[in-house]
């Protein structure tokens, strides 16, 4: 996977590039909007990590231009502006996800992974299948190894999200945003409690637990591999 990091803060960029390389990505770096746009249009990147405030060309303008040029690779916007409105602007300009600074590297990694994998899975699916877990999206039923599991509507959506991102790290913030539509940090371990309830239902009577806790990052539903 080849990534482009457009970030003008040299030190922040160095850490970001180092972290991403250690996570197995091939990473290029541009320190201004113009170079970033040039590189993104001319090289086949799988995803772009874009700072919002950049010299020479603003981050939002970079995404807009990229989209107009027909480039559809996922773009993750980083910004010091954390408000919900700023987020909406970023997504409207063509960004695929928005992360406010300061962010945890694990959060960035998880979101990036989600963006890179998203294109593989189709949203038209009516059934999700992970290991011995089956989910029927139309009948709203879940079975594990053929045994039905009764879930509350929210638990169903939580599991659906985990299954769609099977094998990936999913952070608490990602769950809050996508399952509950909460765009703030509730300070309490609400997500942990919900996940542990879900775990009770799907892992309790089985030898292998599917929902894993990733220390310092979030959760991962064990993939089919």
């Amino acid at each position: 996977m080849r990534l482009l990091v457009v970030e003008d803060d040299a030190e922040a960029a160095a850490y970001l590039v180092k972290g991403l390389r250690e996570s197995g990505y091939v990473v290029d770096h541009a320190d201004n909007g113009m170079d970033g746009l040039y590189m993104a249009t001319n090289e086949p990147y799988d995803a772009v990590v874009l700072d919002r405030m950049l010299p020479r060309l603003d981050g939002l303008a970079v995404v807009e231009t990229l989209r107009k040029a027909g480039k559809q690779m996922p773009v993750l916007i980083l910004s010091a502006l954390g408000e919900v409105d700023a987020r909406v602007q970023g997504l409207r300009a063509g960004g695929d996800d928005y992360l406010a600074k300061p962010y945890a590297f694990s959060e960035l990694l998880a979101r990036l992974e989600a963006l890179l994998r998203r294109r593989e899975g189709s949203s038209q699916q009516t059934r999700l299948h992970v290991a011995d877990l089956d989910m029927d999206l139309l009948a709203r039923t879940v079975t594990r190894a053929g045994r039905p599991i009764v879930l509350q509507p929210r638990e169903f959506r939580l599991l659906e999200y985990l299954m769609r991102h099977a094998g990936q790290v999913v952070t608490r913030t990602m769950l809050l945003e996508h399952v509950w539509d909460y765009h703030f940090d509730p300070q309490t371990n609400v997500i942990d409690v919900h996940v542990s309830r879900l775990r009770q239902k799907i892992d309790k009577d089985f030898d292998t637990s599917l929902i894993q806790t990733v220390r310092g990052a979030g959760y991962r539903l064990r993939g089919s591999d």
Partner: protein
Amino acid sequence: MLSSVVLGLVFVTTATLIDHQTVTAINTEMAGLQDIHQRGGPGALVKALERRVAGYQGYHHVYLLATRDGEPMVGNLHHWPRVEPDSTGWLRFTVEDDTDQRRDLWPVQARVVPLASGLRLMVGRDMTERSNFAQIMEQSLAFALAAALILGILGGVVMSRNLLRRLDAVNRTAATILAGDLSGRVPVSGAGDEFDRLAANLNTMLDRIQKLIMAMRSVTDNVAHDLRSPLNRLRSRLEITLVGKPDMDEYQASLQGALEDIDTILQTFNALLSIARIEGRNATETFEPLDIAEIAEGTVELYEPVADERDQHLTFDGPGAAVAALVNGDRHLLMQTAANLVDNAIKYAPQGARIAVRVSVTDGTARLEVADDGPGIPEEHRHTVLDRFVRLEQSRHTSGTGLGLSLVAAVAELHGAVLALEDNDPGLRVVMTFVRHPQVRANA
């Protein structure tokens, strides 16, 4: 000043009246004498004049009959005046001497008429009284003017001293505040005049500024207090790790701890920023009609497992499916508000507590209520908990930034909602009463 104008008017009117009467009197007398002359000839006129001159003791009237050359024939003047009459025969002159030497100078207004016989007849009147009157009037006027001027100057001095004194009070207050004492206020005299209104407005402004500065000061103090300890902990942690001879595991543990410290600091920081943004925000642009019951129910659903873990009983009680608790507001902020209220209740109420979230609609006004039967907040502290960072000593050990309720207060203010902390007897009840939404259907 007014008195001078009145005096001036009196003078002008009186003078005109006197002049008019003089003219009339002279004309009447002249007409009579001309009549005598016409009927009886010069002889009769001379006789009549002699009689008149003899009959008058004073010199109110002046008569002189003279030849064509101006040689006096009969009358109470010795000389024909040197002043030439105007085209209508009128003239004014001053008599320099008279028959009995009683006075040296007296003004005369007179009319000269040439008679058919070639004689010239002059009839006049002594104008001494009029000129005396004018003199008195002039003096009075001068006096009145002088008095008005003096009074005016004195009044001006007194008034401007009063003005300056009151301006000085404003200046002194400003100086006090500049010197750092924010409690200084402009004195209000109680006269209810413009100065008092100015003083009242300035004082209101100063109250507001003082409140803002105090708020800012307390934020700074609290930032210092609440951020210093985790920063200090972080620093010691890193320092001590470096001083020792740590192995890999110890390094990892230390760094992990450091990350947690930083997260706490960032959380506090973000909460502070959110509140500042909400307070400085221009509302309404992100506002939309929302069902507060739906938001509260979602929050209860989110927190229900958390309450369950603490054996707490978290319930939701809505206005019923038929009623929409519509509120004009910002979805994310209201979600966060409901979450903060429930989060607080769970955090501060003991194990086994009952926490009730209720949404009701009365007369189109939606009400969100979060009540617990925990220890509550003592009445004297209820007001202060809404301020930033205030955490009652007893709760200092629990996690959180202490900014939850301040954020709720800021959101309430942005939405024009009234936030009240009430006694749930036992426990705390936080009530948020929203402004009436026009689309709300009447309560069934």
